[in-house]
C-alpha cells in the first residue's frame, strides 16, 4: 500500500466534510436572512467582485493549485516500486513471489559463500539486479580472479529460484584496498 495515501485521503475527506458543513450552515443562515455565521464569505465575495482575472494574486493562487495538483498526480501515478518478484507456482490459485529484500538477501548469501569475499551489496531494481561484492585481498588482480566464481554462484542461485521474469544480472567485485 502507498503509505502516504491514507493520511492524504483522511485530510481530503475531513476537508470535504468541513467545507460541506460550512456551505450548508451559510446557505441556511442566508436563507433565514442572517449574516455569515462561520465564515465571513461576504468579504471574499466583495474581493472577487473587485479583483480582475489578470491580478497577480490570481496568478499566484493558480500557480499554487497547478503545483499541488501536479504533485498529487505525480505521487499517485508514479509506477509502484517493485516489491514482489513472481515465482513459477505449482498451483494456478497460488501467487508465489520473492520479496525484493529476499532476492537481495539470497544473492548476498550466494556471493559471500565464495572464499575471499567479505561482503556484498545487492541492488534490486525493475528488471535489473546489481551485485557488488568486496574481496578480502587487495589489488585489482585478486578482485578480477574472484569475479567469475562470484558470478557463477549468484547466477546459479538466481536460476534456481525459478522466477517468472528473472532480472538481468550484473556482478562487480571490488578489491579490499578500496
Amino acid at each position, binding site marked *: 500500500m502507498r503509505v502516504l495515501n491514507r493520511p492524504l485521503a483522511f485530510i481530503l475527506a475531513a476537508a470535504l466534510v468541513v467545507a460541506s458543513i460550512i456551505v450548508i450552515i451559510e446557505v441556511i443562515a442566508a436563507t433565514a436572512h442572517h449574516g455569515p455565521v462561520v465564515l465571513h464569505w461576504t468579504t471574499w465575495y466583495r474581493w472577487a467582485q473587485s479583483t480582475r482575472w489578470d491580478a497577480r494574486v490570481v496568478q499566484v493562487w493558480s500557480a499554487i493549485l497547478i503545483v499541488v495538483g501536479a504533485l*498529487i498526480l505525480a505521487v499517485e501515478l508514479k509506477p509502484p516500486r517493485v516489491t514482489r518478484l513472481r515465482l513459477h507456482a505449482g498451483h494456478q490459485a497460488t501467487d508465489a513471489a520473492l520479496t525484493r529484500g529476499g532476492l537481495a538477501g539470497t544473492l548476498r548469501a550466494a556471493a559471500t559463500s565464495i572464499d575471499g569475499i567479505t561482503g556484498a551489496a545487492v541492488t534490486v531494481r525493475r528488471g535489473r539486479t546489481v551485485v557488488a561484492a568486496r574481496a578480502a585481498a587487495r589489488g585489482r588482480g585478486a578482485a578480477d580472479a574472484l569475479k567469475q566464481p562470484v558470478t557463477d554462484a549468484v547466477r546459479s542461485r538466481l536460476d534456481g529460484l525459478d522466477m517468472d521474469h528473472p532480472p538481468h544480472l550484473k556482478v562487480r567485485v571490488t578489491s579490499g584496498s578500496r
Partner: protein
Amino acid sequence: MHADRTNRTALIVFGCLVLLAGAAGMLTSVGVFSNAFSKHALFANQVSTYIGKNGAWVWPAAAAVCLLIALAALRWILVLLVSTDRAGDIALPGAKEHGTTKLPPAALTGALAGEVGRYHGVDSVRGRIIGDAASPQLVLTVTATPTADLSALHQRLESEALAHARQALGKQDLPVQLDLDVSRSSP
C-alpha cells in the same frame, strides 16, 4: 470495503480537479482565452450572473449536494479508520443437518505457522486470511534464513503447507499469496 483503491481514485480525481482549476485560472489570467476577459472581475461572467439570478434554488441545491458529499466523506473517514481486509470465521463445508462448523482464521494461520516454522531453513512465518469469509484468500509470508534453499522451500510449501490449508478449508481453489523473504541476520 478496503479503502486503498478508493483512496487512490479519489486522490487522482482531486489532483486532476486542482490541476485543471489552476491551469484554467492561469490561462484566463494571462489572457490566453481573451485579453478583454482577463480585465474582467472574477465574478463578472455568465455563470456568476446565472447563479446571482437563480440563487433562490441554486444555493439550496448546492447545500443538498454538500450534504451528500459530507455523508460520503464521513463514510470514507469511517472506512479509513475502522476497515480491515481480514476475513471473519470461515464456515467449513459438510453436512449442515446438525449445525455448521466454523473455523476462526487465526486457528488456520496458527496451524500453518506451526507447520511451516518446523521446515528446514525457515526463520519466521506470518499468515493471515483476507477477503470475504465465503471466499477467503490466504496470505502467507515466510522468511527464510539467508543460506536456505529457496527453491526447495518453495516446492515444499506448495506441496505440503498450502495443500494442507486447502484441504482444511475444503477449497482446492483457495487463492494463496505466498511471499518468500530472506532474513537480514546471519543464520
